[in-house]
């Protein structure tokens, strides 16, 4: 589904990604973790071309991102993305947030988009908030709406960029619950997150990054059982002992 081949990226002279290679199979749930500044968010943003890269290639569902003929807007409309800061559109109601891209990008009718959007809003348990504005919702609720907004586009896979890092602790679980449910339904997911409980319960593989490199790419069992690299061991020791 997603193939990342030898991707390198520079900001000017500074190299942020160094020869990253991995792939995500259909139905697989991958957790990407690592210390801050390790390039994990940058890597996931490369997957739907929100960040350009200078070397290597990423192929999503058979479409190469480095091919100049690729319609990046069209590709992005098939790849759901959830951001750290939710990024709901503050000038639109929740319903409008859920329907606008369906109408303007997928060309769905108003009624069809509304029906689909509300279906997903109901799934994340926020039907009562349909006519409110994002600013009237809590962070956890906003993030659940953001997930519903991405799902309403019928994505072939979902990218999560630290979806719980900006939330108050008591709201983390309501978002993780939605993500766990999605994973169990077989959605292909690539999640940048520090939630190791989430990784343990639903991830198939864990990728550990440090200084722009993929240091460890292992099955969940191997990663938590016997991480090969010292870096990953230290990282795990630090975040699991709290």
């Amino acid at each position, binding site marked *: 589904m997603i193939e990342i081949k030898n991707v390198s990226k520079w900001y000017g002279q500074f190299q942020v990604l160094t020869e990253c290679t991995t792939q995500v199979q259909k139905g697989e749930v991958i957790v990407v973790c690592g210390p801050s500044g390790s390039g994990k968010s940058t890597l996931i943003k490369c997957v739907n071309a929100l960040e350009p890269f200078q070397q290597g290639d990423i192929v999503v569902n058979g479409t190469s991102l480095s091919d100049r003929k690729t319609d990046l807007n069209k590709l992005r409309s098939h790849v759901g993305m959830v951001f750290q800061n939710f990024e709901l559109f503050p000038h639109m109601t929740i319903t409008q947030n859920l329907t606008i891209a369906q109408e*303007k990008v997928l060309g769905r009718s108003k009624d069809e988009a509304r029906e689909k959007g509300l279906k997903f809003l109901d799934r994340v348990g926020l039907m009562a908030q349909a006519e409110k504005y994002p600013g009237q919702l809590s962070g956890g609720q906003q993030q659940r709406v953001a997930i519903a907004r991405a799902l309403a586009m019928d994505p072939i896979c979902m990218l999560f960029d630290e979806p719980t890092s900006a939330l108050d602790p008591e709201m983390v679980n309501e978002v993780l619950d939605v993500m766990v449910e999605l994973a169990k339904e077989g959605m292909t997911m690539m999640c940048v997150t520090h939630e190791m409980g989430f990784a343990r319960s639903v991830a198939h593989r864990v990728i550990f990054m440090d200084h722009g490199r993929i240091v460890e790419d292992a099955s969940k069992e191997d990663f938590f059982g016997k991480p090969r690299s010292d870096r990953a061991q230290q990282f795990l020791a630090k975040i699991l002992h709290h």
Partner: protein
Amino acid sequence: MYEFDWSSIPGAIPLLANGLLITLEVTLTAIVVGIVWGTILAIARLGSNPVLSRLAAAYVNLFRSVPLVMVILWFYLIVPQGLKAIFGNDIGDIRLTSALVAFALFEAAYYSEIIRAGIQSVSKGQIAAGLALGFTPGQTMRLVVLPQAFRNMTPLLLTQAIILFQDTSLVYVIGLSDFFGTAYKVGDRDGRLVELLLFAGAVYFVICFSASLLVKRLQARFAK
């Protein structure tokens, strides 16, 4: 001791109202055209095309670096002569037209700077979210960025409109009878210049002060 005599004002009300209409016409045209053209300039300036970006910057810098009164004179004296030379035919009374064009083009430079700041006030994450949903960059600008930008900058746009309303009085240099120009002419005719100018000043004050109170209320609402 100067003896005030306000008696020439009531009879001049229809004339003054006409003048006020011209003032409003110039103001509104400059606001509408200025905001539309200013938005285009701001987008060009922030865009990735270096040629368009430089052209937009040059336009804005040029108009912001010359006095408005000169721009009004250019468009009255020079541009029509050029057009006459090109097209050959005589042009009628172009005072109002040239004032409308001059103000619209001049104000666009100021509006474009306000709008540019407004666009930049919208977070990069919002743009990423728009693109991630499959919007084209154009749709992201139109549906996501501009509505938020305009909301953020409404008080500034209104403040600029108030300044513009006052500045329209400069059309007296091309003999156009706007509100101020009419007041001056009536005062001159009746030998009551002091009264007419005081009256005109009071009218400008009432309109502008009410408008700025409105802006303050809007600002308080947006700050919430």
